[in-house]
């Protein structure tokens, strides 16, 4: 029965991915349009046309190579070598249980306890863990964490997460550009007014509102969706390992050990097993549900 609901979950995830992409794409276009109206009035449609082509290519490229970029940015190295035999065996074994091809396996040198999965679909996916996680957790705890990450792969969460990371980043960049430019933008407006153009003020106000609210709206969508998926991945992990206590005690240890200084960009923090930045542990803005809550649910299984 649970398998059938997972199938539904995948369809739902796919639909949500498309909806979110479309929604954020519209926000991006609105941002570009406002920027164009402020800085190049009269050419705004041409600017929007070129910008939408550029944004389209950008999204496609980052979607295609996003995982590689992320792996490089976090300094992840392939887990070859004899010290990682157990890790490789665990990933391969749990992939068998999940019925997906075994993903590529990477390791990050860090004392923090964390992990993430990335990629587009189960055929193009990778799992990364920190060396701290391998050192400090027992085997059944590591299995719980790996099971959680593999569930993200099986449920197509990784595709959604990669897309979100790309778009959140893009909206952030554009909003930042807009807000920064307001300092000398005011002068620009005066000049355009002296040329007798109306509506500059309206677009300026609109731009201001968009620049402030667009990143917030996109982030709220990101938070809401990713938190729900964490619970689901916890449940799926237990379905694979058939041992809730492994994951629960892993979470407990992580909560006690992690200091929250992995230096990971906010745009990709939702990809990780637990939030890599402690500043974001605050309830509203957290990409992950509170760890205590996750442990409680696991212990009641």
């Amino acid at each position, binding site marked *: *029965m649970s*398998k*059938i609901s997972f199938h539904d979950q995948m369809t739902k995830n796919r639909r949500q991915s498309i909806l979110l992409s479309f929604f954020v794409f519209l926000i991006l276009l609105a941002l570009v349009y406002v920027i164009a109206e402020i800085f190049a009035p009269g050419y705004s449609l041409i600017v929007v046309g070129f910008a939408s082509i550029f944004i389209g290519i950008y999204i496609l490229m980052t979607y295609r190579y996003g995982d590689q970029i992320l792996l490089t940015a976090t300094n992840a190295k392939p887990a070859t070598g*004899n010290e990682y*035999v*157990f890790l*490789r*065996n*665990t990933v*391969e*074994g*749990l992939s*068998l*249980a*999940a*019925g997906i091809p075994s993903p590529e396996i990477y390791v990050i040198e860090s004392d923090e306890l964390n992990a993430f999965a990335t990629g587009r679909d189960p055929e193009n996916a990778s799992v990364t863990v920190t060396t701290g996680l391998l050192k400090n957790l027992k085997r059944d705890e590591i299995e719980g964490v790996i099971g959680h990450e593999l569930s993200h792969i099986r449920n197509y969460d990784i595709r959604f997460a990669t897309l979100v990371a790309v778009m959140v980043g893009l909206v952030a960049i554009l909003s930042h550009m807009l807000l920064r430019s307001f300092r000398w933008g005011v002068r620009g407006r005066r000049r355009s007014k002296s040329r007798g153009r109306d509506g500059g003020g309206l677009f300026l106000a609109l731009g201001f509102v968009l620049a402030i609210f667009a990143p917030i709206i996109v982030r709220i969508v990101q938070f809401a969706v990713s938190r729900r998926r964490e619970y689901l991945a916890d449940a799926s992990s237990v379905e*694979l390992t*058939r041992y809730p206590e492994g994951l629960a005690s892993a979470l407990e240890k992580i909560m006690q050990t992690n200091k929250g200084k992995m230096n990971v960009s906010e745009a990709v923090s939702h990809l990780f097993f637990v939030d890599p930045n402690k500043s974001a542990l605050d309830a509203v803005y957290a990409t992950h549900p509170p760890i205590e809550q996750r442990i409680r649910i696991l212990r009641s299984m």
Partner: protein
Amino acid sequence: MKKDLWWLILPVGLILIVVAIVIYYINRIRVLSNIVDNAWSQIDVQLKRRFDLVPNLVETVKGYMEHEREAIELVTKARERMMGVTTTKERIEAEGALTQALKTIFALAENYPQLKASENFRLLQEQLEGIENKIAYARQFYNDSVLRFNNMITTIPGSFFAGGRAPREYFEIPEGERAPPRVTFK
């Protein structure tokens, strides 16, 4: 004129919907059946890998565990037995025997610190334990797949499209394997 058209569109639309549903279920049953077959072959892959690793283990262990000829013999025999099997039932039993024999070897290895210190042995043990786990996981996925397939063809509406397909069999652990391994220390 328009009314006449509706008389045409309605039945054609209905037929199309019915055809779509039929195609969906027939394909779904095929897909689930293929998944079960694939899951079975995944178990085979792991069993084959274990089979190939056993001679390495025997070679490594021989030098250190001279007093455990019997236990080593048991492993070699179990492996040989697997080459002669024909039926699935025989095979499952032979696999079970090999699992037991390997467990005994690893339990006995605890008494040989030199062996345990050997890098080669540690790697082999890690490998074989990993494979043992993978076999268990592959079986779990196989049973999950069988459950999904059986649910599909025994419940309405899937049962209408089953076309006489019989429910698939679960992978049951043979009787002997359920008991913990017996280890005797001399």
